[in-house]
């Protein structure tokens, strides 16, 4: 996984609540066997009409947000299906940071596996950032110092955010989770031996 670096970009305002993963990437795009190439279909049904033509009013189709790396949205973002195609499509589009007042658990977790930083802030704070995003101001996301900053009318605004230490390290260092766990393979073997003696039926079950 790529290391998470400081982001400087304007932000896409999407003030909707309960945005579900079906909305982020509809099922017809889940038939792929690859992780890449999903960005063009991100928010497909909000973004394109029934003839596949871009819907001008949708924020992703507005020129000024073309290269944004940040998405600011409403509470319970990413609810629904566990499909990792949701963060894959977000990342493939170029978004590396999502700000909301809350996220659904599975989606939140999936973000970190793909180098995306989801930031939880109070609703009032998110609303302020939404407004700044509407004005296409530029934001800096500094994960190292856990700070979001932006200039509005020559005043520098700084917002701190909380993040679990393990998740922060994993993003900053682009860690290979599986490799880290496999380094503890002896613990896993020990556990299996212990479990086999306590609940042996888990190990004698045979597929017929």
């Amino acid at each position, binding site marked *: 996984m790529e290391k998470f670096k400081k982001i400087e970009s304007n932000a896409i305002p999407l003030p*909707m*609540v*309960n945005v*579900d993963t*079906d*909305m982020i990437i*509809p*099922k*017809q795009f*889940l*038939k*792929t*066997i*690859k*992780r890449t190439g999903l960005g063009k279909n991100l928010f497909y*049904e909000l973004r394109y009409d*029934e003839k596949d033509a871009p819907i001008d009013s949708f924020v992703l189709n507005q020129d000024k947000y073309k290269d944004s790396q940040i998405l600011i949205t*409403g509470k*319970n973002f990413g*609810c*629904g*299906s*566990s*499909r*990792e195609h949701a*963060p894959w499509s977000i990342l493939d589009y170029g978004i590396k940071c999502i700000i909301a007042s*809350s996220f*659904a*658990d*599975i989606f939140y*977790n*999936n973000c970190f*596996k*793909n180098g995306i930083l989801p930031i939880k802030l109070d609703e009032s704070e998110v609303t302020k950032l939404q407004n700044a995003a509407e004005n296409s101001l530029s934001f800096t996301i500094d994960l190292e110092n856990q700070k979001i900053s932006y200039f509005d009318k020559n005043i520098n605004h700084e917002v701190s955010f909380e993040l*679990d*230490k*393990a998740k922060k*390290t994993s993003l900053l260092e682009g860690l290979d*989770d*599986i*490799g*880290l*766990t*496999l380094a*503890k*393979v002896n*613990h*896993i073997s020990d*556990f*299996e031996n212990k*479990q086999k003696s306590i*609940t*042996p*039926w*888990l190990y*004698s*079950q*045979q*597929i*017929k």
Partner: protein
Amino acid sequence: MSTPKTLYDKIWNDHLVSENEDGTSIIYIDRHLVHEVTSPQAFEGLKIANRSVRKPHFTLATADHNIPTTNRDEGISDPESKLQVDTLEENCKEHGITFLSMSDKRQGIVHIIGPEQGFTQPGMTIVCGDSHTSTHGAFGALAWGIGTSEVEHVLATQTLVQTKAKNMQINIQGEVPLGVTAKDIVLKIIQTIGTAGGTGYVIEYTGDAIKSLTMEGRMTVCNMSIEAGARAGLISPDEKTIEYLEGRPFSPAENEYQSASDYWLSLASDDGAAYDKTVNIDASDIIPQVTWGTSPEDVVSIDGLVPNPEDESDETKKKSMIRALEYMGLVPNTPLKEVKVDKVFIGSCTNGRIEDLRAASKIAKNRKVADHVNAIIVPGSGLVKQQAEEEGLDKIFIESGFEWREPGCSMCLAMNADKLKPQERCASTSNRNFEGRQGRGGRTHLMSPAMAAAAAINGKLSDSREI
């Protein structure tokens, strides 16, 4: 005496491999269910890193999400879906994982076949790249949905790195009135706590109304834990659980069954165990429920009205209500029972089990599906289908005018050919009424199998108790 523990605490403790320096824990995964949509990239990841599957025999695979429910003999006509299913089969062959193919009568929706095969057992940790893995919690197994990166992690290590969730108790006191089902209970729960109410928690369902549910009913409740925001839902194992599992293909053998059962019963939450949050709901207040909007929390009783956004004081909520009503093509204050439907879907991992089909068949028997309605029944597995046919349910449905299909996820997520057209309205026993979920522009009303069957007969949303 040791501190009283919840079922969740006990399963967590029994699966703790090690605690990492950063506060996370490595948790052992006893069983892994795999399907075609969320696994190809995981197997590809293994190949790239030159890693193998640690416990192929703790893994069970099948194709369910994008397979056809008609003309199975002709195979899969959609090339992308076919590639995904073929890829799963090849990956399973390469790694020695049991794969139940479309032609195997044991094939079906992962969350139906796990319990049916006895692959699901109390006290286990079970994962799958599918959010409705919470279904298996009905057995007192800690089961949750994961993304593809974690699928790869489990394949390679048979563990996951986790942070412990909080405990929530949802206590359904008393008994539900006659004609009220598990689906009505869980819709009521989601309405009560909201779709983010369970975020960060594992929910344990308790109370007399839960205890008196069959295992099928318990699965329906646990299945929709994710719609309440919780990754996992649990019900403490009891005699019903033990009875259900006895003699199933993967269940512990006869000589081990007693000790397994003793262990399972010991897992039930202790009296006096502490929960971080408790929600009480009175069962006697629950009547058949339906959704009116595009979020599973948009629930009303069948005798109610389409809500009016003008009555909502919260501006954000009001806005999303207006959007939902527009999408759903509904006018505020319309009685639910006047809403006409075009399609009916009975099936899914929520309600595709034998008991669900029996409930629907009772309504369908000696009645006809309304002329303007297209109604399909999709059994959850080949074995559910077989049993229903042995009981003659297929004939009842076909005589009534329902279509009798092959097992799979079908119109719950509409990845295969079964989908709604724009503006079509569907009475559905599935679990999500999101915009576009059953097809672009499609309008979904979630409800129980009896309620969906009643909607098929009357051609509009109806109270199954009045038929």
